[in-house]
């Protein structure tokens, strides 16, 4: 009824205008039908939750009491959450910088080889791998045991190549005999020996199976007389396999300890001569000036083997996880920067080359400044992604260092769902994450509006 009345109240339209109006309304309804599913989902599952979280962040853990800004004050005073904020800052400062730098270097270099495409594919491949799988991969790689973790295996190999390995980490002097332990882990006799003396140095604590190959019994050497002017001795394992030996005596079956570093020291502690024991454990200092000496087995013989780095310990866990993140994202930075590189004006580069600029000058003075817009986009993109990093930290950091490795996203998860069950504080952390991406939001909107003009 009403509709009819309204219609009649209007001035009569020509049939054509009426049809145009009707078809416009029809097309509007069709348009709304096209956008409706998207708007419904975005409204119910994105826009409404954002508003809900903002509101929820002003209520207490159970959601029954309004607490104003308390959750926000708590966020900046609770040590665990502060730690997460600090780690997120480290992530945001370090990861995008390293990635952009690495991506730039690789993008420039890869253009110089013929297999550039294959290289790009390989580096981009980790983008297809889930953070979970990458997490498992790097948890394996970072294993602290150098027999299992590839990184520590490499670290130990390099370390031992330069520093050498100690032959007898478990050996110690037989107590109650002549050797006394120094503070640094060395062993030394009293300073009462001189040229012409023979000394026996009993050690224990080496399992027979750990004896170096080629070790021979020490008995013959122990009973050889020193030549005049020589200070001789034998260092041996004071343990008879099968039992029956007596402590402090070189028994027939007891083995010498080869490759032991031995020093002759003066009373003031200064080493005057140094040698290494033979297969039967014997050693000999020749040409010593008359006087009294002591014999020392330096601590380097007994050093604990180098065990590598504690990658996933509290101190290094965040850098270690950032390392895994680099593995995933470097290809992305490289390919995006490479695309920017391909679009650079060739003549600018050629002109510089003609003027005799070297590659470094061209890179520094021309390539980088011209690439600045691309580098900015890559950097901003990485910052947004780094801010939300969750899975990698959650998977790689072992349980006991989760708190040391925490970032905002893992802290928010822990507080809201992982036992903390404080959804007020959890919502506040979520809102903080949202606030942190608002500059990027403004950047996107502005860039879009500009592109539409």
């Amino acid at each position, binding site marked *: 009824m009403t509709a009819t009345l309204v219609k009649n109240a209007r001035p009569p339209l020509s049939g054509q205008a009426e049809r145009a109006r009707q078809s416009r309304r029809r097309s*509007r309804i069709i*348009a709304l039908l096209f956008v409706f599913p998207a708007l419904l989902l975005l409204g119910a599952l994105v826009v409404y939750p954002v508003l809900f979280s903002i509101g929820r962040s002003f209520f207490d853990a159970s959601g029954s009491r309004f607490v104003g800004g308390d959750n926000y004050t708590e966020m900046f005073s609770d040590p665990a959450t502060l730690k997460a904020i600090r780690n997120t800052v480290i992530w945001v400062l370090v990861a995008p910088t390293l990635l952009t730098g690495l991506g730039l270097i690789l993008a420039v270099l890869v253009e110089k080889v013929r297999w550039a495409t294959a290289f790009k594919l390989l580096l981009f491949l980790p983008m297809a791998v889930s953070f979970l799988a990458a997490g498992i991969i790097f948890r394996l790689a970072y294993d602290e045991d150098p027999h299992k973790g590839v990184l520590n295996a490499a670290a130990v190999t390099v370390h031992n190549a330069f520093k050498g390995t100690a032959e007898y980490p478990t050996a110690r002097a037989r107590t109650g005999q002549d050797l006394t332990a120094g503070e640094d882990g060395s062993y030394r006799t009293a300073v009462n020996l001189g040229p012409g003396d023979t000394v026996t140095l009993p050690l224990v604590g080496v399992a027979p199976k750990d004896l170096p190959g080629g070790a021979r019994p020490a008995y013959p050497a122990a009973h050889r007389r020193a030549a005049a002017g020589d200070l001789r001795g034998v260092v041996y394992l004071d343990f008879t396999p099968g039992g029956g030996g007596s402590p402090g005596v070189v028994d027939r079956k007891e083995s010498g300890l080869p490759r032991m570093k031995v020093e002759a020291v003066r009373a003031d502690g200064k080493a005057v001569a140094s040698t290494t024991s033979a297969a039967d454990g014997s050693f000999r200092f020749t040409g010593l000036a008359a006087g009294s000496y002591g014999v020392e087995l330096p601590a380097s013989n007994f050093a604990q083997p180098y065990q590598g780095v504690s990658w996933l310990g509290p101190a290094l866990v965040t850098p270690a996880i950032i390392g895994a993140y680099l593995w995933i994202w470097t290809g992305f930075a490289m390919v995006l920067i490479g695309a920017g590189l391909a679009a650079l004006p060739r003549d600018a580069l050629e002109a510089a080359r003609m003027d005799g600029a070297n590659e470094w000058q061209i890179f520094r003075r021309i390539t980088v400044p011209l690439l600045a817009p691309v580098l900015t986009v890559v950097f901003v993109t990485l910052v947004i992604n780094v801010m939300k990093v969750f899975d990698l930290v959650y998977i790689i950091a072992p349980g006991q260092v989760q708190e040391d490795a925490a970032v905002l996203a893992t802290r928010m998860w822990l507080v809201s769902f992982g036992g903390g069950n404080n959804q007020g504080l959890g919502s506040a952390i979520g809102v903080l994450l949202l606030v942190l*991406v608002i500059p990027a939001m403004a950047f996107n909107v502005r860039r879009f509006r500009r592109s539409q003009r």
Partner: protein
Amino acid sequence: MNAIRRGLSSAVVQVFLVVVGLVWLTPLAGLLLSSLRSSQDSASSGWWKAFASPGQLSFDNYSALLKNSGMTQAFWNTVLISVPATTLVVVVAALAGYAFAWLDFPGREPVFLLVVALLVVPVQIGLLPVAKLFGQLGLFGTIPGVVLFHVAYGLPFAVFLLRNYFAEIPKEMLEAARMDGGSEWRIFTRLVLPVGRPAIASLAIFQFLWVWNDMLVALLFADPSSQPLTVELQSQIRQFGSNIDVLAPGAFLSLVVPVVVFFAFQRHFVQGVMAGSVK
């Protein structure tokens, strides 16, 4: 002289890039070899020992995995989540993208700006409210719930990408189709979708990968019967070290599909990831 120097520096570059390439390959090789070794071997030595004794390698872990009903169920759940979540995003976003590009309705400009603003909203902020909402709707802990969440958070980028691509379609093409009396639906299915295929392919690959690799969303929204492979595997991470014979092949299985997609659709894949990086 210059030529020699150039040749030398090029050799240095080649060596450097080969080393970088090996560093990038090593973690994947480590996972593959670990997945083929018994738990005893993994407990006593590193995967590189397999080069010395190839006899250690066998597919036993994989056949054990395929007999593990929790794992196979989780694998199917991953498929059942990823495929609909990808399809739905493409359909819903294509409809909306066409409307934002070519149809007239009130509020078109401001609403689209809102979509652009939503591009960077972190999923974290949606977890708690949507969990409550799904609890009321009976969707919490179900596959449709996980799918809907992924669709909603994939939409801003999807609509943005497709609207911009569709907007490039020449106006004359659409006018001509309208003159011929085609309905909007007909124009959409017969003209816009085929023309927009490259963008749709990039979007589909990006979204598929995103959902397939997701752990966070499913960790909250899926229950044990609907959880995907990522969640099933992370539930075993606590015993890390003693169960490498399960984790390594599981992780490898989970990355086979994305890697195949990667090699099959390299170009679209790279474009999709590039375009979607703003998320």
